[in-house]
């Protein structure tokens, strides 16, 4: 699992869930914010995407959750070329991906419970089928007592965990998290990280974009390092924790 993700791009035999081949991306007529990215992620893997602010981490995730299109290259998701998916297939593909957005995107007029249940409703499940699961999930992320609360009344860490609950409630095959520990203290960051580890153990492919070097250093997960839109080898780290701080 600690192999370099760039090497994996040359290994087509893996049960890959995601493959980028020579992918570039730009906003409108602007400059490329991602250039010539190639990578391959096996199903069930756990990756960090790191890099300074503005490096293109969020943009890379957008390509994966189908909110943006590459300007060059191909993105293969679930073994399918995204550019060749029929318009009607895109919503179905999105339902197989859970996203914790950088700005969370919780709906302020809906209760925590309704926010968390949203993906299930969109997928057309019956309330009677998922009511219990949603309650259980919210309890699991520590929001058991806040199920009826509106997001504006939640604390930062609670909002973050609610966004995570919504992202995983439909048992996605891929979980993307954009700076999921951005607004929470160290303690909460670790709790959230353990949540992702738990989900990964249950089979979800996890990709976390973060500039929290401490978190990355404490884990032994492979890292995709972005620098000005390009995948670069990870720069040498400061004094390593020697595994003692691993989580």
């Amino acid at each position, binding site marked *: 699992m600690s192999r370099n993700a760039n090497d994996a791009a040359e290994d087509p035999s893996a049960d890959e869930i995601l493959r980028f081949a020579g992918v570039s991306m730009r906003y409108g007529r602007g400059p490329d914010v991602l250039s010539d990215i190639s990578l391959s992620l096996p199903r069930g893997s756990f990756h960090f995407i790191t890099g300074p602010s503005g490096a293109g981490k969020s943009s890379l995730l957008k390509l994966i*959750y189908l909110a943006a299109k590459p300007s060059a290259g191909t993105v293969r998701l679930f073994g399918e070329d995204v550019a060749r998916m029929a318009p009607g297939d895109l919503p179905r593909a999105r*339902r197989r991906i859970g996203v914790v957005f950088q700005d969370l*995107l919780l709906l302020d007029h809906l209760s925590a419970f*309704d926010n968390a249940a*949203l*993906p299930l409703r969109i997928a057309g499940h019956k309330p009677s089928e998922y*009511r219990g699961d949603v309650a259980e999930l919210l309890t699991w992320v520590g929001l058991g007592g806040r199920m009826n609360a509106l997001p504006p009344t939640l604390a930062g860490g609670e909002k973050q965990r609610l966004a995570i609950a919504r992202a995983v409630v439909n048992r996605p095959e891929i979980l993307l998290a954009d700076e999921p520990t951005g607004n929470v203290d160290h303690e909460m960051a670790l709790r959230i990280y353990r949540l992702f580890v738990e989900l990964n153990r249950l089979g979800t492919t996890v990709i976390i974009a973060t500039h929290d070097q401490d978190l990355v250093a404490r884990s032994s997960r492979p890292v995709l390092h972005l620098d000005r839109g390009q995948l670069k080898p990870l720069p040498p780290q400061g004094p390593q924790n020697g595994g003692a701080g691993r989580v």
Partner: protein
Amino acid sequence: MSEPFDPARWRPAAFLPERDVRDPALIFAIAVLCFLACLTALGVIAGDRAAHGWSGQLKGEATVIVRARGGETPDAAAARAAETLAGVPGVSEARALEKEKAYDLIRPWLGDVTDLEDLPVPRLVAVSLDRKRPATATVLQEALKAQGVDAVVDDHQIWIKDIRRAAGVVRLSGASIFLLIALAAAAVVAFATRAGLAARRDVVQVLHLAGAEDNQIANLFELRFARVAAISGALGAIAAALTGALLRLIGGGAGITPALPIAWLDLLAVLPCPLLAAIVAVVAARLTARRLIQDL
């Protein structure tokens, strides 16, 4: 937020906020436009009926001006003319008007002349025509000529033409005004729908990214704005119907009703208003929602 929450009793909340602070203003604006549109529609219907009524009345009547000839007195000439006319097919009644009526008609031109008896004032014969097969002016003229009566027949054709033209103008301008107001109402509904959607961009975005079909999202807004538009349309229609009913009630007899005869049944013309408003809202919501989703 200390109230206990029981997931077992949870019911999914509407994705869109049930109420929007803009709703009252929006409902008011659409309702007013629907009211005006309905009122114009009622006006067009009533104007049309009035025009029909006037020309119908004129069509059913003719006036014959009789001049005495030879030694005959004007009254005798008029009586003979009336008798002759009554026998013509297509005439249901012919009646010589009393001489006072004739005097009344010419008095404005002559001033208050005390002794009109000396003047050779022509007499009038009022002819009621059979409405189904009215006799033409020519037929009446021929019949009188055959009996040697010197008379001029006026079957009001000139007036009827004028009224027809006036009715056409009323109908056309009414229809144009109605169309304009209806279009304005539609534009407001469409505009409000777009504004509402733009204000709910967050919902559109979240639903879209969570894998909602474009149709699912568009439907939410369609339903929402169809409801608002239908409520507004109903309010406007009810207000217009009440106004119409009021005009009908106070306009009885010599009031406005002779000019704009509103029938109770006309009030039903406002019925399609809520439906039409809702349809416009649905179309506008669909188009706008699709554009917004594509722009995400």
